[in-house]
């Protein structure tokens, strides 16, 4: 969640949660395929299955016990329930961590899904992301998506085309995987936006504005407001 990223995962606290959490990593490939067991430090291109036309990675992230911050992983879970086109992998995470750079390195496109803390609650926006090393965090256990892309670019000499799709949350109080009515209402729009990006060519989603060209070390926001509530 931009602006509250430090709260993700590390926030802890006593939430209203079940002891058997539903959320975890969801993936459209088997554990064995996802692991890339034979690879050394070279990312494997066959993690997406048999020669798909393109490789799209979707990562929904956020804390499941911080109310609307759970919209990222919940969206990932909904997408993973399918159906999904070939060559699409979906991951749900509390936070973005360093090892995800290996997953990014084999993708053609990546779509991050997160909650947004500022703005009109329920508004869904998307923006192109570029690698940005200066987005580095002084903390170690979570990364900004632009920083993660920069890790990928620096270490593996490639970074996938990337987008961040967000929904503005209304409440970030303790609540386990329970969205506010506003965020719940925004979820279908958010999923539609992700699917539109998923169906796109990698240069811009079909029927949506073309994203600005990549500018090194810039965080350019080509956002489009799709829905407003309240």
């Amino acid at each position, binding site marked *: 969640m931009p602006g509250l990223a430090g*709260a993700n995962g*590390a926030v*802890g*606290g006593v939430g209203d949660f079940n002891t058997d959490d539903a959320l975890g990593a969801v993936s459209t490939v088997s*554990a*064995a395929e996802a692991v890339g067991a034979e690879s050394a430090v070279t990312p494997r291109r066959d993690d997406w299955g048999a020669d798909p036309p393109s490789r799209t990675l979707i990562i929904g992230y956020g804390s499941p016990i911080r109310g609307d911050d759970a919209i990222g992983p919940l969206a990932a879970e909904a997408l993973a329930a399918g159906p999904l086109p070939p060559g699409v992998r979906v991951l749900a995470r509390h936070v973005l961590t360093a*090892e995800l750079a290996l997953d990014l390195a084999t993708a053609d496109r990546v779509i991050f899904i997160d909650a947004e803390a500022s703005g009109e609650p329920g508004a869904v926006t998307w923006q192109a992301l570029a690698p940005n090393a200066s987005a*580095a965090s*002084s903390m170690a256990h979570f990364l900004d998506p632009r920083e993660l892309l920069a890790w990928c670019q*620096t270490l593996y000499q490639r970074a996938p085309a990337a987008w961040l799709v967000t929904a503005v949350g209304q409440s970030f109080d303790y609540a386990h995987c329970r969205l506010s009515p506003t965020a719940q209402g925004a979820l279908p729009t958010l999923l539609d936006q992700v699917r539109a990006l998923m169906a796109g060519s990698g240069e811009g989603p079909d029927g949506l504005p073309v994203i600005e060209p990549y500018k090194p070390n810039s965080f350019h926001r080509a956002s489009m407001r799709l829905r407003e509530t309240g």
Partner: protein
Amino acid sequence: MSRTISIEPVTRIEGHARISLQLDDQGQVQDARFHLTQFRGFEKFCEGRPYREMPALTARTCGICPVSHVLAANKACDHLLSVSIPPTAEKLRRIINLAQLTQSHALSFFHLSSPDLLLGWDADPASRNIFGVMRQNPDLARDGIRLRQIGQTIIETLGGKKIHPTWVVPGGVSEALTADKHAVMLRLLPEGLEIAKRTYAFFKTLVPKFLDEAAHFGSQDTLFLSLVSPEGNLEHYDGVLRLKDARGRILEDQVPTWEYERLVGEAVEDFSYMKFPYYKPQGYPKGIYRVGPLARLNNANACGTPYADVALAEFRMLQESGPVASSFHYHYARLVEIIFALEMMERLLKDPRILDTRVRARARSNRDEGIGVAEAPRGTLMHHYRIDENGLITWVNLIIATGHNNLAMNQAIRQVAKTYVDGNHLQEGMLNRVEAVIRCFDPCLSCASHAFGQMPLLIELRDAAGALVDRLCRD
């Protein structure tokens, strides 16, 4: 005019803290303190909750080492149930603990400390970060990522999720290991071990460059506390408590974990929200001790796996005799433990009964007090609960690994500050060394602090009356 230098927050550690350096009239360091600045109060939050919730509750006190809290909490619950868990469940718990240790140590070495070790303490802070490491030694950075991925994948394969697994339950684990998961994990380990061995070999070449730091980074005498196996070997999940002094004499041995209160007292100071545990028979603050990788290796007779035992022998040669004193060698000890963890996970996975389906003992609470102790990556983690007749928590005491090291961290920053910091000619590299000695301990403050967002690095100079003289801020 005496002044105080404040370093806040300390960077490249887990959590938020401040260091203050008190200067005398000549600008020399008089005292140094490590402050945990935010209060969380988890022990109080837990009161009134069913004891079976404790693993899930306490795991959420920390997004960094939740597996460690899950294990210590479940061991405390096992104690409340008065059960001995099935042998296969114990082995599976050991594997997830070692996977957590692998990924945690990898993060500490590759991502938090390598910028100092590779680029130097005095390097430009703008480039003294992980991207600087990637540019200078991309293979090392890639190895770090892969090793972390291997550790995390094993946690996820066993626990079903990476950050807060709920697979470990009171009485054992909730599901037996399947053959396909077993195969996945076994395939990962040889590659992990190769990475660990070549990183260890590389680091050995760096160690001679840091003789000065090794001599001054927390090298003063302390005791060492850790679990050891009943045979006295390296232990991370169970076993008994051992305490050695700085000369290597064993002061306490074969102490059952439920007798921890006989060894450990807890003091408080008004400048920090972190407790100050101490060795009770020597009193406060004399009874200063360290926990974590350095203490574990100093206390263990042997590791019990081939490559780790070779590395342990080399670790002991860092010093002519006695336990290795310098906190700088926490880095070395972490690499030895990664090797051990990968070897031991393979051994456990090759156990002929590892796929056994008896993995959980079922019972209701059979006593009103439970104690669970395990070795977290950063040191000994203690959970102690009392419950009423309805199984509701009435009292909790948590002693976190980083808390055990609190006195030692304060002693270490005093030593480093007095050695390197000149208040009359303040340079960033001096302050970085003060931060770096804290990074040796790899403190995780999440369990004891609570912060939203991030803070800049702030250095303030104040005069004796507390007035602000100068201020530097690093975003």
